[in-house]
């Protein structure tokens, strides 16, 4: 019964080829019924947003609940959404004034009580259902000022607060959540969002209908009347359902399969960047456990940066993606640097640098990875061309991360999604701050990032991140590689624009 993943992939592709050869044009019902049928791999463990971290759960949250502020997906600007204003009244206090007249799906009026409850409940140690405390624990406590005003008291100055408010803190209805608990919220989710949940069939699907009394805000009114998200774990089955007209939208389709569907009548394939990026990480700390490896020499790291043809690998194996120069995704707040050197693909220069470092004939090194083996092997191929003989060590994510944290790994290929938080505080500001994942432990950098993280004056903060990125790039602490892409396949009757936050915002989608 068991076949290798390569054989499985080959057979899957051959089944798709047969599917394309045998199938006719699908007869779709989505547009006619104003119902978007969306197939996805995983069902969230619970529909209570705060009790899970599953991607589908995050996606659903954007449709069912609202956040105080919202990022304008066109301009990238943060704008008040549920709130009419969100302001720092001092470095550790944020005042939130709510938009009056917003109603939850059950008819409850949105007030400051809901904002206060959401923060305090998520930060309550007695609430054991919370899956990721870091979404809200930067707030010490929240207090009500009047019916439509609340104050958030922060533990310490936290400049990325806006990004967190936008992505990680949907506002829950206090009375309903208190009465129903996490389980009740999962059975019948209630929010203020553009879609209200009308049916939850565990193990099968969740059904949402356009909320007619939606206040609009930055997201605007939803255009499609009904969305059915159905859970089908196998991509090939999803494609077959799409081909048969039993589905309108699938996502995260493997590149090979998506390419076979391109140009197919009735279907549209699109590719979109995501905030997730790949990077090469070096342990240069010299802490106990970290071996005295060649990668501790600056010239070696710079040679590696010049040796890997990032653009070619990303284009040929991923089918897209943005080549990165910094340790963050370009649209994240603070992801810029004028002074950071760029490392172009230049094998002769890489060889020179290796010779300068004392390795004219290259060296052997263990190279660790946990996903996208094809990409890892392509990197190794490029390294071999300049004499670096990398030996691939393939591990699961958890043991690999453990080893990185213990300083047992000199050189590894990792990826990071920033939890979809559009601020470098959750990328550069996380990895180089002396935490367990910081494999550089550069005191100057730590100090700089600490200051930037607490600086609420935006231009000052951006200047600090600029300097930090330049420092990282000069020392080649990481080799940032590329952003990852998603392939989306849909009926050609659907108008849909992907965004890098790995969230298909279906309230923006419409029928053609």
């Amino acid at each position: 019964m068991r076949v290798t993943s390569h054989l499985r992939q080959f057979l899957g592709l051959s089944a798709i080829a047969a599917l394309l050869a045998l199938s006719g044009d699908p007869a779709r019902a989505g547009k006619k019924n104003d119902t978007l049928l969306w197939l996805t791999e995983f069902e969230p463990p619970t529909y209570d947003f705060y009790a899970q971290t599953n991607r589908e759960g995050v996606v659903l949250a954007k449709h069912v609940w609202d956040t105080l502020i919202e990022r304008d997906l066109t301009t990238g600007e943060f704008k008040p959404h549920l709130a009419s204003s969100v302001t720092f009244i001092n470095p550790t206090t944020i005042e939130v004034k709510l938009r009056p007249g917003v109603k939850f799906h059950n008819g409850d009026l949105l007030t400051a009580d809901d904002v206060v409850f959401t923060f305090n409940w998520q930060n309550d140690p007695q609430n054991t259902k919370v899956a990721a405390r870091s979404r809200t624990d930067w707030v010490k406590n929240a207090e009500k000022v009047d019916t439509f005003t609340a104050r958030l008291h922060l533990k310490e100055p936290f400049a990325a607060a806006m990004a967190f408010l936008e992505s990680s803190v949907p506002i829950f209805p206090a009375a309903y959540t208190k009465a129903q608990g996490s389980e009740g919220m999962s059975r019948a989710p209630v929010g203020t969002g553009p879609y209200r949940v009308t049916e939850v069939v565990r193990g099968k699907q969740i059904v949402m209908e356009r909320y007619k009394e939606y206040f609009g805000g930055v997201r605007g009114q939803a255009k499609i009347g009904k969305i059915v998200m159905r859970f089908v774990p196998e991509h090939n089955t999803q494609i077959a359902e799409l081909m048969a007209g039993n589905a309108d939208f699938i996502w995260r389709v493997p590149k090979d399969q998506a390419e076979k569907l391109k140009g197919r009548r009735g279907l549209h394939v699109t590719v979109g960047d995501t905030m997730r990026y790949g990077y090469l990480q070096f342990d240069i700390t010299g802490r106990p456990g970290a071996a005295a490896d060649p990668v501790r020499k600056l010239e070696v790291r710079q040679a590696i940066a010049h040796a890997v043809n990032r653009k070619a690998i990303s284009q040929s194996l991923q089918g897209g993606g943005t080549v990165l120069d910094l340790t963050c995704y370009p649209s994240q707040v603070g992801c810029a640097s004028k002074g950071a050197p760029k490392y172009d693909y230049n094998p002769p220069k890489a060889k020179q640098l290796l010779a300068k470092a004392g390795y004219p004939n290259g060296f052997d090194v263990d190279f660790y990875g946990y996903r996208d083996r094809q990409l890892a092997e392509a990197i190794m191929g490029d390294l071999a061309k300049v004499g670096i003989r990398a030996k691939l060590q393939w591990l699961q994510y958890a043991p690999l991360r453990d080893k990185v944290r213990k300083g047992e790994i000199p050189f590894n290929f990792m990826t990071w999604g920033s939890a979809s938080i559009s601020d470098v505080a959750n990328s550069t500001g996380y990895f180089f701050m002396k935490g367990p994942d910081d494999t550089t432990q550069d005191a100057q950098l730590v100090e700089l990032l600490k200051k930037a993280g607490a600086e609420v004056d935006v231009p000052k903060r951006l200047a600090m991140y600029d300097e930090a990125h330049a420092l990282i790039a000069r020392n080649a602490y990481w080799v940032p590689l590329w952003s990852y892409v998603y392939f989306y396949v849909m009926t050609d009757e659907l108008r849909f624009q992907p965004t890098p936050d790995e969230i298909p915002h279906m309230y923006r989608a419409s029928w053609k």
Partner: protein
Amino acid sequence: MLKYTLHKLLVAALVAVTVSFVAFMLLRVSGDLATALGGESARGEDIARLRAQLGLDRPILSQYWDWATRAAVGDFGRSFYYPEPVWTLLKERLPVTLTLACWGLVISLVIGIPLGVLAALRPNTLIDRVAMTLAVLGQALPTFWLGLLLIILFGLVLRWLPMSGTDTWQHFILPSFVLGYYSTPAVMRLTRSGMLEVLATDYIRTAYSKGLPHRTVLFKHALRNAVIPVVALASVQFGLMLSGSVVIETVFAMQGIGQLAWESISRQDFPVVQAVLLLVSMFYVWLTFASDLINAWLDPRIRTG
């Protein structure tokens, strides 16, 4: 018979303990569970909290003892991923898998026995070879691939059957066929060899010499004896169907314990994986135990031997 039954019960209990112990240890040596569960965005303090909350900071033997004593009374703990007790998840998912396994078994018998009879009636002929090829093909084809091909043919091209889900009985036709077809060769071969053996016996020759019609001799006298071992095999095959449903349930998007196991392995939701392993192995143990008892009841030489 009582001594025999007690002996078999003891063996069954030992198998259960061994399977659960080995599974528990193997699952826990595959990496730090708290890091895996916390996921990429979990900070160091989140992971430490998770480790303490789940009792993963205690010695592994103590963890196993706690789990085993609770499992013995049907408490498999809570899922790390779903906010529910494991037993609730199993109860929700088991009917789908049992239905699928039952239909798979029926299909395997319906295909395997006639093919075996046909092959035995014309041994070493073209018919025998075709029957054998048809049966062996079922085992040779990867089940997920056969499933996809059937989805394409019956779901997409002919539009006769639904492709995924468990809403109606029609949803079970394709996955049951794939599952049943996979275990056809064993049934077919056993039927064939049983029939060949029985057809060569004196009582069959006597039946023919009495002038009984061919059909009566074949079905009433020969087949009834030849399929006795097949009945014993069927119980083991049923266990195989339960474990074999992992791939099929995933392809056909059926929310059974197979899919639950597959998801739980990828999420490192060990309480669920552990419970599914124990449940499936217990099915095996009990089915083998039942078939041993039936055989012993049918053949006194087994229970006195």
